[in-house]
C-alpha cells in the first residue's frame, strides 16, 4: 500500500536509501505517523526473485556504477573499479549481508580515551554513552530476531563451524559459538527458520535471514505513511538562502529528473554514496559541499581490518553447506595492547562457492600453486577476520572529475592506505586463524587478502564538536538542522564488531529524535 505523496509536498521526510539505516528509519518514522518518501536507486527484489548463483546474483543486486580507487590497499590493484561490495536494491545491503549481529563493547564507544594517542590515526570518542544504547540495542535485536538474545536459541553448527570450533578449543579459545545472528533458528516474526541452504550472501530465499526488503519496508508501507520510490537515484540535495535543505533532485528509471520537496532530508546511501552526495550538492553558499564546514565529509573512511584464512584438510568439509557465517571466536575482540596493536578483532566462519573462491582466494594468482588449492575445494574450511581499523583523515571519498557516472556526475574515488595498527592486527589474526586450522590437522593454509569492502564506515562521522565531524549524537548535521545522516557513515570509530546491528540501533534512536523534534517544531 504505497502512500503517494506529491512532489510539491514539503511536509514529508525524504530518506535517501532503503538499507539497514534508511529502511529501518523509514519504517520507524512511518509507525509514528510521520509522512516519509524513500528514494531508492535500486529495484525491488524479494525472496522469490533472489538467485542462488554467486555471479548471477551479483549481477542482479550489486552496485556497479562507476567508481575508482587509489592507495596501498590490494583492492585498488585487484578490483580497481570495485572498491566495495554493496547492494543497489530496495533493502540495500541487508539483502546480501550474512546476519552477524553484535553489540559494541563499552570501551569501543570511547576509542580515543581507551587507546590514547595513536600516530596517524584520527581517533575520537563517540559522543554517546554506551548506557544510552542498551535499550536501543535490545530493540534492534528484537527487530532483527537475533539468536542468543532474548529467548531465541542459537543456530546449529554446520560442517565449517565444527572444524572451526574444534580448532578454537584445541587452541584454548573459550568464547566460541554459532554466534548472534539475525537468522531465525526457529520460525519467528512471520518468517521461516533457516534451512541451511548456504546462500546467505545472495539473498535468503526462505526469508529466514532478516532483511529490510521484506520486513521494515513493507511494514512501513502498510501504515500508509511511507512511499518507497524504487529506481529513483538522488543526484543532489537542494537548499534555500537560509541554508536549510528544501528537497532533493532525483532521476527516475527512465532518466527523467524530478524535484521532491522535503521538510527533512535523511541520507542513508552507505559510506561511499552518502558523502559523495553531500559533495556533489556543493553550491555558492556551501562551496565545499553540504554540511562540510569541518572539512570532514568523505574523510576517515573505514572498512574494518579484514582478511580471510582458508585451510585444506585431508578429508571433506563441504563448507558451502549451511549458513555462510556459521560461528565466531570472540577471545581476540578485547583491547590488549600487549599483542602489538590497539583494539581487537573477531574470527567468523565464512564459506564461498567455487566461483567466488576462484575470484577471491588469491586475486591475480595462477598456475599450480593456485589450482591445487581449488582442487581441494571440497576439503576446505574458511573464516573471515573482522577487526577495528584506524580512522585516518587521508582515507577518504573524493569526487573524481575525470570519471563520470551514468548521470554525468563525478564518480567517487575511494582512497585507502592501511594504518600500521591495521597491518599489525591483520598479521596477528592471520597467525591465530592459521593456528586454529593447524590445530585440527590442516595440510595447507591460505592467509587470504581482503575482498572489496563490505563494511563501509565513517565518512560523515559523529562528533561532540562541530569542528571534528559532520553530525551530532543524533546523526543531525552540525551545519544544517534539517539534514540527517542515517547510515554507517555516521560511525566515529568502527569497533571490532560487524556494524549493522549498531546502524539499526542508531536508526531506531534517530527516529525517536526526529519525531520528537518535529513535534516540538524545532525542525
Amino acid at each position: 500500500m504505497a502512500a503517494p505523496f506529491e512532489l510539491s509536498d514539503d511536509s514529508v521526510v525524504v530518506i535517501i536509501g532503503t538499507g539497514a539505516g534508511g529502511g529501518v528509519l523509514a519504517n520507524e518514522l512511518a509507525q509514528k505517523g510521520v509522512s516519509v518518501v524513500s528514494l531508492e536507486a535500486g529495484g525491488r527484489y524479494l525472496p522469490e526473485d533472489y538467485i542462488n548463483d554467486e555471479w548471477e546474483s551479483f549481477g542482479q543486486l550489486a552496485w556497479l556504477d562507476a567508481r575508482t580507487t587509489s592507495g596501498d590497499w590490494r583492492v585498488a590493484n585487484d578490483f580497481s573499479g570495485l572498491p566495495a561490495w554493496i547492494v543497489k536494491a530496495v533493502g540495500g545491503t541487508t539483502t546480501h549481508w550474512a546476519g552477524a549481529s553484535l553489540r559494541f563493547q563499552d570501551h569501543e564507544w570511547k576509542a580515543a580515551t581507551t587507546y590514547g594517542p595513536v600516530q596517524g590515526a584520527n581517533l575520537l570518542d563517540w559522543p554517546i554513552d554506551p548506557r544510552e544504547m542498551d535499550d536501543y540495542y535490545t530493540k534492534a535485536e528484537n527487530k532483527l530476531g537475533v539468536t542468543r538474545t532474548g529467548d531465541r536459541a542459537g543456530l546449529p553448527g554446520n560442517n565449517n563451524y565444527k572444524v572451526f570450533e574444534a580448532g578454537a578449543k584445541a587452541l584454548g579459545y573459550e568464547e566460541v559459538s554459532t554466534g548472534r545472528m539475525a537468522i531465525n533458528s526457529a520460525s519467528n516474526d512471520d518468517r521461516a527458520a533457516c534451512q541451511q541452504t548456504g546462500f546467505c550472501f545472495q539473498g535468503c530465499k526462505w526469508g529466514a535471514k532478516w532483511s529490510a526488503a521484506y520486513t521494515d519496508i513493507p511494514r512501513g508501507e502498510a501504515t500508509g505513511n511511507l512511499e518507497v520510490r524504487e529506481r529513483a537515484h538522488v543526484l543532489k540535495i537542494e537548499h534555500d538562502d537560509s541554508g536549510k535543505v528544501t528537497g532533493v533532485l532525483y532521476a527516475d528509471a527512465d532518466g527523467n529528473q524530478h524535484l521532491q520537496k522535503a521538510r527533512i532530508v535523511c541520507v542513508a546511501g552507505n559510506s561511499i554514496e552518502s558523502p559523495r552526495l553531500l559533495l556533489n550538492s556543493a553550491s555558492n553558499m556551501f562551496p565545499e559541499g553540504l554540511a562540510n564546514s569541518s572539512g570532514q565529509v568523505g574523510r576517515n573512511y573505514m572498512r574494518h581490518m579484514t582478511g580471510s584464512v582458508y585451510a585444506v584438510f585431508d578429508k571433506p568439509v563441504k563448507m558451502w553447506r549451511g549458513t555462510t557465517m556459521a560461528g565466531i571466536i570472540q577471545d581476540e575482540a578485547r583491547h590488549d595492547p600487549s599483542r602489538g596493536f590497539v583494539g581487537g578483532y573477531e574470527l567468523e566462519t565464512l564459506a564461498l562457492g567455487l566461483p567466488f573462491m576462484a575470484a577471491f582466494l588469491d586475486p591475480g594468482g595462477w598456475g599450480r600453486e593456485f589450482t591445487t588449492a581449488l582442487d581441494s575445494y571440497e576439503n576446505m574450511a574458511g573464516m573471515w577476520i573482522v577487526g577495528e581499523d584506524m580512522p585516518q583523515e587521508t582515507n577518504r571519498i573524493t569526487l573524481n572529475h575525470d570519471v563520470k557516472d551514468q548521470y554525468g556526475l563525478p564518480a567517487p574515488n575511494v582512497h585507502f592506505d592501511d594504518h600500521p595498527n591495521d597491518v599489525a592486527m591483520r598479521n596477528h589474526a592471520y597467525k591465530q586463524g592459521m593456528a586454529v586450522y593447524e590445530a585440527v590437522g590442516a595440510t595447507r593454509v591460505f592467509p587470504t587478502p581482503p575482498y572489496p569492502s563490505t563494511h563501509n564506515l565513517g565518512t560523515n562521522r559523529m562528533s561532540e564538536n562541530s569542528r571534528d565531524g559532520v553530525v551530532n549524537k543524533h546523526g543531525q548535521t552540525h551545519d544544517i538542522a534539517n539534514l540527517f545522516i542515517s547510515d554507517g557513515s555516521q560511525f566515529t570509530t568502527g569497533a571490532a564488531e560487524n556494524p549493522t546491528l549498531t546502524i539499526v540501533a542508531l536508526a531506531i534512536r534517530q527516529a525517536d529524535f526526529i519525531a520528537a523534534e518535529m513535534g516540538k517544531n524545532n525542525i
Partner: protein
Amino acid sequence: MTSRNTKLTRRQLLSRSAAAGAAFVVGAGYVAGSSAAWAMNVEHVQPTTMATLIQMARDIYPHDHVADEFYAAAVKGYDSADAAPMIEAGIAALDAAARGKGYASYIEAGWERDRVDILRGLENSTFFQTIRGGLVTGLYNQKAVWPLFGYEGESFSKGGYIDRGFDDINWI
C-alpha cells in the same frame, strides 16, 4: 559451445586433421581433442590459434581432472570478429616468445614447466591478463565444472541442507 563429436570416428577425424601439440588436432574450421572426444568449430580465429589458446588456458589454471573441452568452452567466446585480431596478435607474441626459447611454437613445448616459463615472461601483458581474468569466470563459473570440484551449487530447490548433511562431517 563445444559438442561431443558424434559424426566422425576418431580415425576419420584424424585423417582430416593435423596435430597441434599432443592434445589437439586442427582442420579447416575446427579444433578437436586428439581423442576425438570433443570438437569445436571456429569461424574467426585460426584453428591452430584456438588450439594454442586452449592450451594456454589449461596452463594458466591447470586442473588434471578437468577435461580440455571445459577449457575450450571457457575461451570459445574469443572466436568473434571483435576479439579475433587481439587473439591472433596475442598468440603470435606467445609463439614468438616460445621460438625465442628454442621451441617451434608454444604448443610444441612439451612440458608444462616450459610453457609456464614462457607465460611468466608475458605475465604483465594486457593479453595475458585479459585471458587470465576472463578464465576466472569463464572456467570456474561453468555449472558443468562445479561437480568436478565437489561443489553442489544451489540447494533451495532441494530444500537446503537442513536434512541433507549440513553437519555431516564425521572426522572432526
